[in-house]
């Protein structure tokens, strides 16, 4: 996908070598009389394509970009699971060391029943919702980076 018209490229060596960037050859402009104007338009896209091919061809820059994304997503997942771990995982321990908490009643229901039987579920859903939003934002940032590398 990155360099789809490779086979025809050698024939146009003269026109494409003017591209200021090294690395894989940018896409070839359509064969028309106004080659330079078309080339000027293509140049902006060619940077994005270059970043794409950095990714697909496993250059060092590409690897760094991907590990940045993986790290961002993993950090997000670990942070949210830590939140759940403390909020839910702390409960058995809390009930064990503070038995009075188990005897507390809210609306006539013992607190552990209310927390585990009812409130745990909306809590999990809210955490999941937050994850989907934040993970999609991470991906959007990555997409922006790849498509507009100059920013």
């Amino acid at each position: 996908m990155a360099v789809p018209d490779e086979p025809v490229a050698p024939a146009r060596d003269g026109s494409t070598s003017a591209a200021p960037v090294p690395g894989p050859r940018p896409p070839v402009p359509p064969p028309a009389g106004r080659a330079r104007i078309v080339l000027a338009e293509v140049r902006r896209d060619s940077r994005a394509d270059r970043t794409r091919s950095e990714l697909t061809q496993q250059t060092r820059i590409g690897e760094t970009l991907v590990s940045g994304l993986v790290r961002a997503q993993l950090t997000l997942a670990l942070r949210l699971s830590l939140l759940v771990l403390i909020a839910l995982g702390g409960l058995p321990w809390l009930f064990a060391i503070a038995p009075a908490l188990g005897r507390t009643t809210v609306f006539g229901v013992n607190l552990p029943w209310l927390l585990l039987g009812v409130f745990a579920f909306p809590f999990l859903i809210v955490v999941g919702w937050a994850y989907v939003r934040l993970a999609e934002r991470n991906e959007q940032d990555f997409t922006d980076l790849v498509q507009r590398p100059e920013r």
Partner: protein
Amino acid sequence: MGNGYVVPAIVAVTLVTLGIGFYGLRLARTTSDFLVASRAVSPTWNAAAIGGEYLSAASFLGVAGLILKYGVDVLWYPVGFAAGYLALLLFVAAPLRRSGAFTLPDFCELRLGSRRLRKLATVFVIFIGWLYLVPQLQGAGLTLATVAGSPYPVGALLVAVVVTANVALGGMRAITFVQAFQYWLKLTALAVPAIFLALQWQADARPAVAPPDGPAFRTATTVVVEHRATLTLADGDVREVRPGDRLDFAAGDPVPAVSGTATAATDWLLPDTAGDDDRGLFGTYSLILATFLGTMGLPHVLVRFYTNPDGAAARRTTLVVLALVGVFYLLPTIYGVLGRIYTPQLLVSGQTDAVVVLLPGAALGDGPAGRLLAALVAAGAFAAFLSTSSGLLTSVAGVISTDVLGRGSVRGFRLATVIAGGVPTILALNVSGLDVSQVVGLAFAVAASSFCPLLVLGIWWRGLTDLGAAAGVLVGGGAAITSVLVTVLGPPLAGWPATLTAQPAAWTVPLAFTVMVAVSVASRRRLPADVGATMLRLHAPDSLRL
């Protein structure tokens, strides 16, 4: 029982299941249709189908039964069953879908390029699938025996035959629609009677759920004991009971203390406290770990993710599933709690798993309303057996047809379905004493100690090698399987050995992760050459289309 509505309700559920299955048959044309519904299922349908598939006999019957028996400490089962989807969402859903694998063994080969690891994963998929199928079939046998008085094998065989036929003929395309329908049926079947039960409880002047002197019989009751136990009667007498013993209680008699259950009000109502038993706390944390991390390793759950069009859709689907499952798990607690008031005899007979199907009749009386609601609950229970067994059977059969028989054809898939359904049916007919929720809990523990580390490390850590993965799965999963076999088949244990084998996840999961990381680091030279490309494929946003 003599409830004339129950059998027609179960027959109706079965016929609708078969009907949608055959409707789907006309749509299923290619092998891809059979295995992953051609990846053309919308997120809402898919989420309802995943929910329908996931809510098994353990959720529908078992959770309420456990709450009736043990009280607040087992509320971790429903919380963990739901939280498992959060772990799946956070760590697995989108990358796994982007990997493009059909099954767990596919993922092993894609990520680590090892045929041997693939074979190992196949063995674990089949083991976990069968371990999970047996209690579904048993639940069917016991439910039909309870509500319709049929012999135990009838219900088990009925579900086995219906599901095998449906999967073999319709494959997964049909299953998606069947299961989406069954989610809503299960939700309705618990929610509607729960409203009536709550109203009835109000009308009965809100009897105390946990009176200080323990539960008491509301009416004169004759209890037929189903499981061996030691009873401590109100006057202090201790009595051993065996299956078949009949005990008579008058209205207002206190329920005797039954060995192995939380009969005393405080035991049931309040969580474990630090002083009395460290093993209780260990068991709770072990259960939390198994259910939180086990869900992502269940083969029938994973196979559903390949039906999403892309990674982002997989994530959204998982969030919807989390919501659907969370709503459902509000309900079993109501049954378990009201069961203390209206069906205390189940504590004595040992048939606590039957509380959901017996409670409407016991609380609302023998009128048409009580009977109709009892039939609705029985229909929901059958939907639970049918849908979970269908999902399990599809994934086990898929793995058998591609990895054991080595044929990708539709005919091969059908043959594999018959094999995959036959073995657990034979097992279920020969063992009837296993506790539904306990066996399901063990299946979670095995999945959490084998596939969970494999998936999490495979998706997030470049350093995983095939040797490390195999060692971790063998050691962690092997330890969990040994615990399962000792618990189910071995001699009764006491003290710490009993706790460590009954709830193994707290030590087998860290063991699996440690071994997997250590062996991978030691065998660094075996790192797959294409790991960079694989990571890119798993994590790059779908919109880039790299």
